[in-house]
């Protein structure tokens, strides 16, 4: 059960937490952003950031379990695109800094790509009775082990101006 109402968004997209669904969702976001901005560069950047972010949800929030839901809420406010990526999986205690790892590291490039692709991003976990702090890159929040058995929503927000 998501704690943020879908009516907050102009458009809401929902997929199952399966890797095969990610590209479809990101192509849809690309189309939306291209329509809104008229900029292929803006649309591609959002698609790139969203792909990395949703990969993280599937892999880390949901541990590659396919029977979950990922919701993406989209709206445009003047010349800014606002995207929320919502999940009900494992919450992040900290939002990693966008640091490029050493070449030998095969993983951990996602946040670097996200940071380079959008103007701003932040993260928050909310439930019916509690809202965690808004985490910016490098920020540390509350230990959310207490939320493991409580319905909650994790929200990663991506902002892109055009």
């Amino acid at each position, binding site marked *: 059960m998501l704690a943020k109402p879908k009516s907050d968004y102009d458009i809401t997209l929902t997929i199952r937490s399966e*890797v095969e669904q990610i590209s479809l969702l990101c192509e849809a976001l690309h189309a939306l952003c291209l329509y809104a901005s008229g900029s292929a560069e803006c649309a591609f950047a959002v698609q790139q950031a969203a792909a990395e972010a949703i990969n993280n949800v*599937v892999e880390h929030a949901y541990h590659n379990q396919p029977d979950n839901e990922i919701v993406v809420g989209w709206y445009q406010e003047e010349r800014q695109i606002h995207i929320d990526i919502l999940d009900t999986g494992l919450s992040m205690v900290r939002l990693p800094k966008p640091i490029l790892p050493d070449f030998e590291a095969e993983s951990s490039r996602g946040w670097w790509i996200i940071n380079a692709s959008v103007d701003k991003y932040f993260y928050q976990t909310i439930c019916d009775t509690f809202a965690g702090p808004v985490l910016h890159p490098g920020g540390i929040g509350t230990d959310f082990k207490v939320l493991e058995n409580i319905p909650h929503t994790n929200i990663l927000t991506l902002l892109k101006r055009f």
Partner: protein
Amino acid sequence: MVINEQKHDDIDIVILSGRFVMADAPEVRERLKTLVEAGQGKLLVNMESVTFIDSSACAVLISAFKAMQLKTGRLVLVNSPIVQSLIELTRLHTVFEIMPNAEAAIAALAAG
């Protein structure tokens, strides 16, 4: 993602087409691993027709590169503009050997 394999003398060539993302990573990783292990140390990964790439693809390419280094072989990439863009964003262009097209890549590998 469509994966085609070719051979040019002692050079193994993998041609990837379409999206190269997390869903495709396991299969490509396995194919490249097999080619690195069984090949003669010359591998061209042609991504001229790759239309989208994410960091999972970078991980697969790094894995293949490291495996090839252990064999003192060479891994050469040919990239579409979109692939090249992400490779440069993640500064992997400072490590990977990248050629402008397949012909140049084959010539470079053939020259040893």
